């Protein structure tokens, strides 16, 4: 089973890389960019076949390693 974890910075946490991207987009002349936030995607291939069980396991993985919940949120998508 393929599972995608998306990790993003929490609202209110300064994201200097997002700011730099925003500035570069503006520099290229893209009008109307009101913000940019950078995150990361982690794709996992699991032997598990049950989506519920996979979600539970990946939630545990996120809490223990994949995200730093002091500053980051995570989102889990079961890709099948």
């Amino acid at each position, binding site marked *: 089973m393929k599972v995608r974890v998306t990790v993003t910075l929490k609202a209110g946490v*300064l994201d*200097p*890389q997002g700011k*730099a991207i925003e500035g570069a987009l503006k520099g290229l002349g893209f009008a109307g960019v009101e913000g940019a936030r950078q995150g990361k995607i982690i794709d996992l291939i699991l032997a598990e076949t049950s989506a519920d069980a996979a979600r539970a396991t990946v939630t545990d993985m996120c809490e*223990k*390693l994949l995200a*730093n919940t*002091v500053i980051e949120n995570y989102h889990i998508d079961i890709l099948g």
Partner: protein
Amino acid sequence: MRSAVVLFPGSNRDHDMVKALASVTGHTPTVVWHQDSTLPDVDLIVLPGGFSYGDYLRCGAIAARSPAMLDVAKKAAAGVRVLGVCNGFQILTEAGLLPGALMRNAHLRFVCKEVKLEVANADTDFTRAYSKGQVVRCPVAHHDGNYFADAETLARLEGDGRVAFRYAEGTNPNGSVNDIAGILNDAGNVLGMMPHPENLIEALHGGLDGRGLFESVAKTLAA
């Protein structure tokens, strides 16, 4: 004072730390590989600077989950002094032994220079050889030293005197909230700091300002 330095793949300040500890305490520390699940009985455990695991995932994230760190957590809970410098500070926050997180420097650049540190609390196991408000020299070298914690955590750190070091006014090199350079855990036996006191230990370094930190721990243990 017996000490141990934990070595991770990608640590690079371990030799400096070993030399500093040997120079100040007179005892050469034991170097422990991160895969060792039991550390020797020592008075001080040090997590040195560097780029453990290439800073993959997040700085210190992988190292914080190594077998040695489980024992560091156990020993810290039992009251053993633990010092994390630079990457070591990042590892301590990732391991949950210190609150908050260290983020990319606000200006996005790697910073390698000397800063001025103000001793914010001289009544700690790691700072008692200094005096409160004393400003000391200390080098920094990092890309991710921008300390962040939520408002509630910050209020607790400040209220309980757990900010050990601050960047002196106008010298904050990374955007850290409240100019925080080093913090203690609740019990006061774990210190994490971004600057490198181990690099200002002998005359050849150009100064001796870093010795006070190690002398403080030795003084605490001798008392």
